[in-house]
């Protein structure tokens, strides 16, 4: 975890209603609302693509972030929110989520060796109610620099690889529908 002097000062904070800052040893859950976020390696393994990490969310546009739930979120709350966020009719009763560890995200560095990703505790209140265990993933440098396309593309592929555990909430594998 960083300190206030480092690129992610928000990581050290405990916002109101949050149980704690997000720890390095935590696992976070990303909802997968669309099959359009997934690719299949041909051997039965499914991975997120860069579609799961839009630039506008990584950059914090309009107050957004890459929305995740922390590991201590109650299973029934994960299910309730996953069902609400799901947009694939075939997954309505058993939504798909991706799980990733926080530490590898915080170990990502840009070309200059700078800390690239912040994982902040970010309690929210939305149309589904209060969620104190919500967290947000953001680029440490939020300024969109269009000249750094490769760096940003590499970051998105790295995040997709960190969230390597993709499955239905029940634990069932996601069926490969091919092309």
């Amino acid at each position, binding site marked *: 975890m960083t300190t206030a002097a480092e690129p992610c000062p928000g990581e050290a904070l405990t916002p109101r209603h949050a149980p704690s800052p997000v720890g390095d040893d935590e696992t976070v859950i990303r909802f997968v609302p669309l099959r359009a976020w997934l690719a299949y390696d041909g051997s039965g393994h499914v991975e997120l693509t860069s579609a799961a990490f839009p630039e506008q969310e990584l950059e914090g546009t*309009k107050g957004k972030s890459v929305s995740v739930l922390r590991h201590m979120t109650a299973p029934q709350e994960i299910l309730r929110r996953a069902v609400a966020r799901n947009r694939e009719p075939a997954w309505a009763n058993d939504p798909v989520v991706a799980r990733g560890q926080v530490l590898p995200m915080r170990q990502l560095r840009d070309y200059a060796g700078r800390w690239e990703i912040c994982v902040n505790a970010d309690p929210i209140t939305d149309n589904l109610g209060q969620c104190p265990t919500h967290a947000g993933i953001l680029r440490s440098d939020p300024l969109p620099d269009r000249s750094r396309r490769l760096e940003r593309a590499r970051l998105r*592929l790295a995040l997709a690889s960190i969230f390597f555990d993709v499955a239905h909430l029940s634990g069932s594998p996601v069926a490969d529908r091919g092309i």
Partner: protein
Amino acid sequence: MSDLAYFGRTAARRSNPVLPLHSAVPSMLTYARYFLESGGTEPITDTGYYDVIHPAHPVSGAVTVSSGAAVPTFEELATVSRTTAPARPALLAALWDRIMRYVRMAADGDEDATPVPAETIEHTRQLLSGLPSGVELPQATVSADGEIIFTWFRSRDRLEAILAPDRHLTWVSRIDGSFTDGDVIALDKDEQLSRFYGAIVDFFQ
């Protein structure tokens, strides 16, 4: 007669690695089961030969369905039957259908999503139609940024290309777990696509 599925693999495409049968089977069965249970673009309801189109392992197979079975099921892989690859135009058409479906879905239900511009769709068409014939077709996904993203796998290695609404194509890869920069090209310069095609060929070599 019990339900049986016979699937053959193809090694006809140069970029498609010849995998041991046992490692290819689960994915094929999963895919075939989808056809049987959900009804794909060509639902299987009768005994016969069918093309099963899979992005990494295109196969043709024969399926025997029990008469009167409401939902056919597989019991066991029995034997390899045919090894004819689906025609490239059929694969391309299936991929195109998927992209257009995802383009529509990405825009529906997400008020903050950037719709994929018509120009990006046209660039996608050009990119796919120009792929060298020996290069495997990618999987394609669509982001809320209005991008179309192409993904190729070679075992666990992966090449990902992002076609952005501002006419730039960026690609990066993951080789043996390490991330490698590819390049960025502007798509208003036709000759630059050849660099991208060369990178894909290199990825599979």
